[in-house]
């Protein structure tokens, strides 16, 4: 009933922002989190030591409630030189005019080394320019409990090429369901909700040849409710119906807590919990495929430059520093995300060849699939996520997807087809 505008916060930020306007200082607003904070403190120190002779310094500002803060600062024209943007929000910000392209500022070496999925996430299709690059990438795969796999006589694939197809994987679930101690073969994270519903399950739809919006015409109807998309959703639903999946209401820790689930479909951020709980029993299995190729989710926070920033020379120095092999490797070590550069992966023992989490890095390099980069993404993901949740919980698939198609296309129409995407 009541909505609150944000002039107060903006005013507050205006006060602090005026302090940064000295020449030759690059100010970067960063997300605030425990593991990130340590990295940023170190990074600021590294930068200021390295460039002490060149009359440029870096100031890092951790900002709580990050998205609200940058939106407010943008409206009052108080954005710093460099900001961080979460992948799915990027297109929305570019469309609003908040960001400028950064491709020309980056060294050739950065662009050569960066992972294709990370580059695709930061590329805006209307002008095909890069607006954002991440230091790390996320990925999702099957985590397995070797004890149960051995009992069921299952040999897990070791490479992406050998990834299970749908029938093989369903057979695996069936075998696991009969193993003593396994209550549910797979924790599919049905209870996660929010962005996970698109992030976590979109790769299966892509793998089956479907999509949630036509990425040429930007119409949802005919794609989100296409035969391919529906078949992928029905395939996942059949696991739920067979009782292979941990119910949404059974909590989050069946795989690594009481170990009543044999497999878990979840991302790299669970590494620590899983490896601590399972130790040597933990195996990493590549994402299964529904069609020709398997795909895995990707995405994360990246560096971007507001259109209001004009200190191009120093920002260029900063971007190439922060995206250097060394810094990317350090970011990965601090946060547990996959290094966004090929050479940094080699420098990080955990993700390098033979490393314990190598499969995550392989997936990020080879089969990462980017969610649609379009300013209507908030509507697309919210409507698709809701429809998928309802279908998993028993709703009619045609009704749910047709409704989502209509809601998405209505929004696109309301925004005059999001020019320049209307071409």
């Amino acid at each position, binding site marked *: 009933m009541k*909505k609150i505008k944000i002039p107060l916060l903006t005013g507050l930020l205006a006060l602090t922002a005026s302090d940064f306007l000295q020449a030759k200082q690059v100010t970067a607003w960063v997300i605030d989190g425990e593991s990130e904070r340590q990295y940023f403190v170190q990074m600021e120190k590294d930068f200021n030591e390295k460039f002490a002779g060149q009359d440029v310094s870096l100031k890092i500002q951790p900002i709580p409630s990050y998205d609200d803060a940058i939106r407010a600062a943008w409206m009052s024209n108080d954005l710093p030189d460099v900001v961080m943007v979460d992948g799915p929000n990027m297109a929305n910000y570019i469309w609003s005019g908040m960001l400028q392209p950064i491709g020309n500022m980056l060294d050739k070496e950065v662009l050569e080394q960066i992972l294709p999925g990370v580059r695709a996430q930061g590329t805006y299709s209307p002008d095909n320019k890069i607006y954002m690059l991440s230091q790390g990438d996320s990925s999702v795969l099957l985590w397995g409990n070797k004890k149960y796999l051995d009992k069921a006589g299952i040999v897990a694939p070791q490479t992406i090429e050998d990834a299970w197809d749908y029938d093989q994987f369903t057979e695996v679930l069936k075998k696991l369901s009969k193993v003593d101690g396994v209550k549910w073969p797979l924790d599919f994270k049905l209870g996660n909700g929010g962005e996970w519903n698109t992030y976590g399950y979109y790769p299966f739809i892509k793998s089956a040849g479907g999509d949630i919006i036509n990425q040429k015409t930007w119409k949802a109807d005919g794609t989100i409710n296409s035969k391919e998309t529906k078949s992928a959703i029905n395939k996942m639903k059949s696991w739920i119906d067979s009782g292979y999946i941990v119910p949404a*209401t059974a909590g989050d820790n069946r795989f690594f807590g009481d170990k009543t689930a044999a497999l878990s479909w979840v991302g790299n951020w669970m590494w620590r919990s899983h490896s601590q709980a399972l130790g040597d029993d933990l195996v990493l299995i590549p994402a299964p495929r529904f069609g020709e190729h398997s795909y895995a989710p990707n995405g994360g926070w990246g560096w971007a430059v507001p259109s209001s920033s004009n200190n191009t020379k120093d920002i260029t120095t900063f971007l190439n520093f922060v995206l250097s092999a060394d810094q990317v490797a350090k970011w990965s070590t601090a946060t547990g995300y996959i290094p966004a550069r090929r050479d940094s992966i080699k420098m990080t023992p955990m993700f390098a060849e033979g490393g314990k989490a190598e499969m995550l890095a392989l997936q990020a390099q080879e089969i990462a699939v980017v969610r649609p980069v379009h300013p209507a993404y908030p*509507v697309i993901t*919210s*409507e698709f996520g809701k429809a998928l*949740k*309802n279908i998993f*919980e028993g709703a009619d698939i045609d009704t749910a997807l047709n409704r989502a198609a209509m809601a998405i296309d209505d929004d696109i129409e309301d*925004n005059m087809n999001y020019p320049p995407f209307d071409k």
Partner: protein
Amino acid sequence: MKSYKRFLPEVGMLLPAIILMVVFIFIPFFLSGYFSFTNERLMPRPIPTQWIGLRNYERILADSEFWMSVKNTLYFAIVVIPIQLSLSLASAILLNSKLKFIAVFRGITILPILTPITVIVVIWAAIFQTPDGLLNGIYQWLTGTYDYIDWLGDETIAMLSIVILSIWASFPFQMLIYLAGLQEIPKDRYEAAEIDGFNKWQQFRYITFPGLRNTNIFVVIITTIGALSLFTQVNILTGGGPNGSTTTIIQYMFSNGFSSQKIGYASAVSVIFFITVASLGLLQRRLMRNE
């Protein structure tokens, strides 16, 4: 002129409250009325906001999901209000007696409203957990089987689970108001009734209940409004599921206005919600006045 000056300090003292009211209640209220006729978006955009007349309202009223959320919200209110009020009144009467340590019991009873609702919800998520939460443990012990109920995952009982949790979480508020109302009733009425040979039930029926008339009007209206604004519990526990069986009007507004960033659309929902709640409130007042 003199009388004008006399009011200055009073106006000065009222001003902060008035400014806050205007900025945070009146302006957003009228803005959302205006937005409901436009295609306003949460994020700024390079194209102008357009006046689209009644299109938002047409879409809302044609959306089956909206009607589902209306149905769920009304169901919730109709179940919650009588149970919660009876419970509040009963516990208020119990706590109004002159037992030893009554202050301690009162303190214990109001604990739920001293706890933030998000914390309560997380605790209840563990209680409701499938298949081995506390509630299922009790159920299995009572039935002597290994059967379990998916409290939040079963379409037919998810809303009832939300009802149970919501009543527990908020009944002490109404109880406190009833308690205050009970203490307003003069003691000599009960003494006179006792002399006349009234039993406890008759005392309740002919003294306590009529004595709480004004309290009742207030409590019923406030509980109705609270019940119709159901959101937090649902948003954290079920996200509106399973299969839409616990979506509510506020949740529908949240999902459209915040997740999908369609502020114009969500404003139209809020206008419809406002009209519904206001007319229900007026209706209740009218009915109870005439009693």
